[in-house]
Each structure stands twice: as C-alpha cells, then as structure tokens.
C-alpha cells in the first residue's frame, strides 16, 4: 500500500463496509465491520497526516484520470487534520454505539444502523478528502441522507419531525451549494477546486461568481448551523440516538466548516471574499449574535442534551468568528477550535448518552444529585464542561487563547473582551449541571442503576482525557492548525 492511495483508502474503507454490514444482516458482525472500517480509516488518516506534514499534499487520481479531467482526491495539511478528527471520533464512538444503540434500537434492525453509520462516516471523510467540487456534493448528500435516517431512529417521536426538518433544510443547503458549483462551472469549465481557483483569479468579481459565492455561503452555512440557519440543529441533536448525536456534533458541522474554509480561502481567495466584499463583517456579526443568543438560550434549557446542542451553536460561532478575522491567529483559532470543540462536545454527548441510557432522557429533573449515583459520568461532564468554558489546562482554553490573540492582533479590544465575557455564560450553564449533580440532594427521578456500562464510559473518558491532553500538549493540535492556517492564507 503506497502513500498515494491513502486518500482514497480512507474514504473507501467505510464506504465498502456499509454494504458488507448490510449483507451481514446481524448486529454483531455488522458492528465489527463498522468498527474495523473506522479504525482502519483512522490509521490511514494518521498516516496521511504524517505524510502531508513532511512531504506536502498528497493527490490521488480516481480511475487514473489525471486532474482536472478526472476526480482528484487531494489531502493537504488542513484536510488531513479534519480527516484525523472525523475518523478518530468515529473510531471512539463505534464501541460506544454497541451498548448505546443496542439499548435504544430494535435488535433485528441494528445492522442497518451500523451500515448507515459507515455511510455517514464515509460521506464526511469523502467531503474532506475530495478535491472535486461536485464530488464533494455527492459525499455531502451521502453523509446527509444517512444522518437524516440516523436521527429519525431516535426513540422520541419528535425525532421524526426533527429528521424531516433537517432533511428539508439540509437539501435546501445542498442544493444551494450545487447551484453555486453550477455557476462556477459555467464560468470556469472545471470542477476541480485547485483548477477552479486558478481560473477564477481573473473573473472573480463577475456577477455569476458573486452569485455562486452567495449560494455556496448560504448552503454551507445551513449545513454548519450558522446563526440564523441553526434552527434545525437543536431538535436534531436532542432527539437523535446518543451515539448519533455525539458523532454528528463532533464531526458533522466541523466538516462543513472545513468546506467553508476550502471555498473561501482555497477557491474564491481571500482577496475577493474578505477584502472586496463585506464578508468578514457579515460573518463577524452573525458569529457574535450566534454566540450571545445561543449561549443565553442554552442557559434556560430544561434538558442537558438540548443545552449542549445550543452550546454547539455558540461554539460554532467562535469558529466562524476566527474565520472572520482572516488572520493567521484567527484561522489558527478557528481550525484548532474545530478540533478541540469536536472532541470536547463528543465527550459531553457520549457522557450524556450514558445518563440518557439510565434515565430515559437527560432532563435536569433526572440530574439532581447525579454525582452520587454516577460519579464518573458527572466528573467527566464537569471536566469536559471546563474545556467548553475554556478553563486553562483544557483544550478549550487553547482555542480561546488564540481567538483572543487574533482579536488583539487585529486591534479589536472589544472583541477580546467579548470572547472572555461570553465564556462567563458558558460558566453559568455548566454551573447548572454542577449545581444539579453535586449540590442538590438526590432527586426522585435520578437514575439509581449506577454508572453506564464500561463500553460507553471508556470511549467517553477517552475523549474527556483527550480534551485535557490537548490543553497541555498542543504540539499536534496547534501546530497542525497553524500549518493549515498558513496554507489557507497563501
């Protein structure tokens, strides 16, 4: 196996695993295939990351058609970084899904769940690895369609409406995206992103190109749940099965952020997006509003899972805030927060999944005195919550640090103060959990069956440990992000 084939292998492994899991028709083999495929992708992604760090971008021509005629898979520092996050989280969530999905779904149809999971992973990895704009759309739809079904599998009937709404919105988003690509294709005659960028440089201010930018921006904003296009997200995350929520929250929106970065900086170019158009101001305004409103809404949620969903919207706001700065620090912050928030939120949703397994759902009435019956789960939530706040010594601090640095570098003091101040809202909503779990007396509705099974607890704690680890050892996350930022700004 040579390094040139890795970009394809990363994607192909889960893609092939999906029909295999389908054919297995039984839960256990399907699960094993899915886990193995995710693990394989993770290893391949790590190998790719090593490869691109030392030797530059890796390109793979699908079907041996050289780009720009054929479809090119192209992995550079940024995409390798996202690939590692997606496949890594997928690998951690897969063992969790065994215990969690078994409890939440019908046993006879479990194999379908794992097949869909593989498809979703393949879609997200494909979006990241491909260098072809239309191919990206296809993978986007693979990931989206499978995630609609996965969300609809939730136990609550509201999961159905959430999935439906997500389907409609997701399809509108994807269609907007493909309209944008169509306009770009009309103007450049190519679908290869690198080629497109080269050809766009002369005609970037023409009307169709600007329309394409608008369509792609709105389409991708829908997918990444940028305020005010976030409305599908809270319900989808709240009512989906726990494993699905954790996986999607950690990866789904992050890959969309990646797509946005790719198009802004890799295709349209900084000059047109951020200098000629008021793009950065719009993005900044939307991010600021997203952070404030979503954080405040989170504060009053009656359900921990829904609270975390709203907090995700706020955290995405921090990522887009970093993008809007369009500086080295800002982009580093965006990319590193994409990574750090992925693992932190993944950890939180996995732990909450454990609570939901024992209690039915994660409403605050079920959390009173939880620390007494589920001490490890509660502790994990607090630690990951600290990372969400951005406490020093956690991964979240690193992201916030670079955001503040970027704001200061740009001379925007109010923005630096804003970032610090809004972290206080995060303190408040995490405090609600601390208060309920640690300080309140044991409630009548609090689950008493003890900790979640080890198969769920161990993956969750791996991510908790990771969100602490990356607060101290930033050599991978920050250096990777900094390299990616440098690449984007070239």
């Amino acid at each position, binding site marked *: 196996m040579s390094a040139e084939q890795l970009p394809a292998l990363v994607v192909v492994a889960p893609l092939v695993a999906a029909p295999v899991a389908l054919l297995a028709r039984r839960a256990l083999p399907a699960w094993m295939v899915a886990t193995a495929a995710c693990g394989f992708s993770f290893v391949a992604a790590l190998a790719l990351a090593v490869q691109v760090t030392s030797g530059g971008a890796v390109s793979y021509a699908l079907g041996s058609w050289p780009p720009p005629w054929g479809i090119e898979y192209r992995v550079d520092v940024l995409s390798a970084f996202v690939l590692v996050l997606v496949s890594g989280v997928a690998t951690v969530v897969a063992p969790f899904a065994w215990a969690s999905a078994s409890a939440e779904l019908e046993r006879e149809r479990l194999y379908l769940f794992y097949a869909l999971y593989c498809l979703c992973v393949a879609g997200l990895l494909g979006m990241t690895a491909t260098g072809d704009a*239309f191919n990206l*759309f*296809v993978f986007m*739809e693979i990931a989206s*369609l499978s995630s*609609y*079904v996965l969300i*609809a599998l939730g136990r609550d*009937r*509201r999961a*159905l*409406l959430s*999935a*439906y709404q997500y*389907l*409609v919105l997701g*399809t*509108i988003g*994807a*269609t907007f995206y*493909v*309209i944008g690509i*169509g*306009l770009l*294709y*009309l103007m450049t005659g190519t*679908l290869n992103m690198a080629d497109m960028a080269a050809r766009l440089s002369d005609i970037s201010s023409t009307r169709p190109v600007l329309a394409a930018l608008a369509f792609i921006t709105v389409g991708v904003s829908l997918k990444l749940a940028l305020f005010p296009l976030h409305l599908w997200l809270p319900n989808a995350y709240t009512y989906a099965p726990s494993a699905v929520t954790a996986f999607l929250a950690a990866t789904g929106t992050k890959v969309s952020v990646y797509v946005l970065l790719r198009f802004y900086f890799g295709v349209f170019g900084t000059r047109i997006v951020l200098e000629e158009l008021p793009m950065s101001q719009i993005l900044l305004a939307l991010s600021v509003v997203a952070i404030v409103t979503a954080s405040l809404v989170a504060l009053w949620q009656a359900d921990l899972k829904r609270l975390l969903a709203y907090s995700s919207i706020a955290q995405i706001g921090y990522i887009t805030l970093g993008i809007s700065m369009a500086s080295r620090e800002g982009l580093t912050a965006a990319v590193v927060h994409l990574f750090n928030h992925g693992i932190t939120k993944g950890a939180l949703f996995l732990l909450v999944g454990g609570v939901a397994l024992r209690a039915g759902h994660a409403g605050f009435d079920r959390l009173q005195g939880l620390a007494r019956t589920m001490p490890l789960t509660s502790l994990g939530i607090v630690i990951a919550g600290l990372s969400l706040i951005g406490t020093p010594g956690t991964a979240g601090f690193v992201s916030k640090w670079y955001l503040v640095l970027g704001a200061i570098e740009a001379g925007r003091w109010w923005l630096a103060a804003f970032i610090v101040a809004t972290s206080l809202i995060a303190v408040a909503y995490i405090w609600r959990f601390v208060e309920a779990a640690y300080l309140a007396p044991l409630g009548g509705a609090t689950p008493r069956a003890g900790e979640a099974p080890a198969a769920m607890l161990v993956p969750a704690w791996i991510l908790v440990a990771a969100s602490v680890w990356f607060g101290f050892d930033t050599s991978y996350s920050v250096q990777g992000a900094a390299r990616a930022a440098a690449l984007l700004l070239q």
Partner: protein
Amino acid sequence: MTAAASHYSYWITVLLMVAGLYIVIARGNLVKKLIGLSIFQTSVYLLYIAPGKLIGGTPPILAEGFRLYSNPLPHVLILTAIVVGVATLALGLAIVVRIREAYGSIEEDEILAADRAAERRPAESR
C-alpha cells in the same frame, strides 16, 4: 432577440427555484413541502443541462463533418443529482409515513401544536 429572451432557460430555472422554495416555505403539509423541494431541486438540473447544449451542437462523438459538440459532462453530473434527488424524496416520504403513524397528521402546525401540548402537560401537573 433581447438578452432576456435569449436566456429564457435561466428564467425558467429561476422561476422553478423560487416556486419550489415558496412551496417549501408556505405549505404546511409535509408531502406538499417535499413536492416543493423536488421542484426546487429540478431547477438545478436545468441550470446545469441548458448551457451544455449548444445550438447546432451534436453528441460528442468524433466524426467527419461535425465540429460543434455539446458538453456531455453536465448530463452525467445531473444523472447523479437526480439519483440524489430521488433518494431524498423517497427518504422524505418514508419519514412522513412514520410521522403520520406517530402523530396521526401530516400538517406541520398540528404536529408542532401536539408537541407543544405534550411538553406543557408535565409542567402543569408538577
């Protein structure tokens, strides 16, 4: 021919797009929404395919006497897009069936009202 008339395919595209989106926004019936969504997606097919056809162009088969070819790539792309569209529609309808089973209705405002009522009930009894 005026510019507007010569680009009539674009006008049809825009019309389909807006009509489809309008249905999605304005109609409360979940099935009608999906129909609107399909119309919306259809506009994209047209957007891609229309410019691929050149007036007087032939299928791209090299042969004596033909110098003007149509671009085949959009057709191929849209074939994929159609597959995606069909899959989306099928999945959407399947979900609507399940919604109908769970709520007994496919009117969105009724479903939302039912959810809201269900959320309020435990709060009042407390």
